[in-house]
């Protein structure tokens, strides 16, 4: 696949995406709503055969953002998918771990530090926080600091 074909592949999903940005030849930023993220990731992993790198959760202005970072190694391209979770009270998103076991840990971790619930996660238990860490305190949420 060359760069153009990759772009085409990505554009196949444009109905699920809010925006596609390509600041550099090999960097893509795709934004989508949380309910579409699972499908987009699945498409990238199974059809485009991109490699999952990691996910990042950000407590953003008015929403939680989850960034899924995928790499398309053939072209050295990194594709970031920004999923916006607008519900700040009960943030939740569909888990991608069932088809991508490599994402199991990071989702658990995000659950730990951000309190985002991953629906259908095989095992949403505490991963990186201490056993005696109080429930309901999410250190990476900005409220936690106040």
């Amino acid at each position, binding site marked *: 696949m060359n760069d153009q074909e990759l772009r085409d592949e990505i554009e196949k999903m444009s109905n699920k995406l809010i925006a596609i940005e390509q600041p550099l030849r*090999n960097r893509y930023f795709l934004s989508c709503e949380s309910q579409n993220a699972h499908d987009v990731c699945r498409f990238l992993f199974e059809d485009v055969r991109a490699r999952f790198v*990691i996910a990042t959760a950000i407590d953003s202005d008015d929403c939680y953002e989850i960034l899924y970072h995928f790499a398309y*190694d053939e072209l050295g391209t990194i594709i970031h998918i920004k999923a916006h979770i607008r519900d700040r009270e009960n943030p939740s998103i569909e888990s991608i771990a069932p088809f*991508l076991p*490599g994402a199991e840990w990071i989702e658990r971790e995000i659950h730990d530090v951000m309190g985002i619930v991953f629906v259908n996660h095989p095992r949403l238990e505490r*991963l990186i926080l201490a056993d005696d860490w109080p429930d309901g305190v999410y250190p990476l949420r900005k409220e936690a600091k106040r």
Partner: protein
Amino acid sequence: MKISMRKPVIPVGPVHPLQEEMEYFQLTIDGEIVTDIDVNIAYNHRGIEEISETLQFDQVPFLVSRICGICSASHPLAYVQAVEEIANITPPERALYVRTIINELERIHSHILWAGLAGHFIGYETVFMWAWKYREPVLDLLEEITGNRNNYGNVKIGGCREDIKPDIIPKLLKELDLLEKKMDMLTKAVLDDPILHARLKGVGILTKEDAIKYAVAGPTARASGVPIDVRRDDPYAMYGALDWNVITQEEGDVFAKTVVRLLETLEAIKIIRQALKKMPDGPVMTEVKDIPPGEGCGHVEAPRGETFHYVRSDGGNRPVRHKARAPSYVNVPSFKASCIGEEVSDAMITLAAVDPCYSCTERMAVLDSQTNALICGFEELLRLSREKTERIRKGI
């Protein structure tokens, strides 16, 4: 026959000689066979991500080099590349060469370290001792170049802190020659030892499918036939301009991982030689004034695999969000695919084979400029010890 409900479990860790770090593998066993594995990595969680957001961009490299001491060149480099991507900075070429060389030196020492530890884990003390002996000169070189044996802190946004001084270069080349000879010998010795074959071949196999599913990286992936290497796929520093090979193996067992690592060491020596030859003169720093708002990512092929950093900036001089993913974070969960069904002893070496270091499965750190401020000197140490001994003696 009644089937017992109890599932015996062997705890490996958190304080276990297999690991240099705190992590907890819970091996459920049946006889000597591992039937399940659970990993707990909370021990090393230092809350780095959260603290990192309170740090200046320029301080973060020192911090991320302490995510883990072994990849202490790769993490900062990946971070710095991410920031450079945001600010659209291109460091001078010489700096890129310096980064390449330091990263490859790191790869060499890390791979040798692993080979030694692997020997240690399977009770082959001689390999351990010899490998670590060969590693020492590399550390000395690093110390001479950067000022520290580990945690070099040599990358800065926009270049490098320390240049490789010309008078070091001949010494570097000489040590590399010596090292190459020794590594050749070690590689041959390891690859030909029948007992090592018996101990490592066919052990802890991670199939290609599993490797893709668990999204593993680095030698772990390359040993399973997944030919990914950031240095080639998305060339950073000067890797694009140098001539070297990506080592892959198909078997996915511990032996394949060993082979990959040992051969990569030799490749690394090759890379350094070329880089030293091609390195142009010039400065190693560009001026960096502000970091505009934006986001960017950088990834680097650390000894254990791809190190990935994502940074978001708001235009201030601190990152808004900094995510770091170290290779072990994806390599470790693959134990579920490679360890189950192995003998306990094999499981141990399989755990060791991805060269996990948990420090990095928990990422991001804060830099505190007063790192060394409160440390007691030897005088203090002596005094404290004396006092305590007095007390003990009274207690006896």
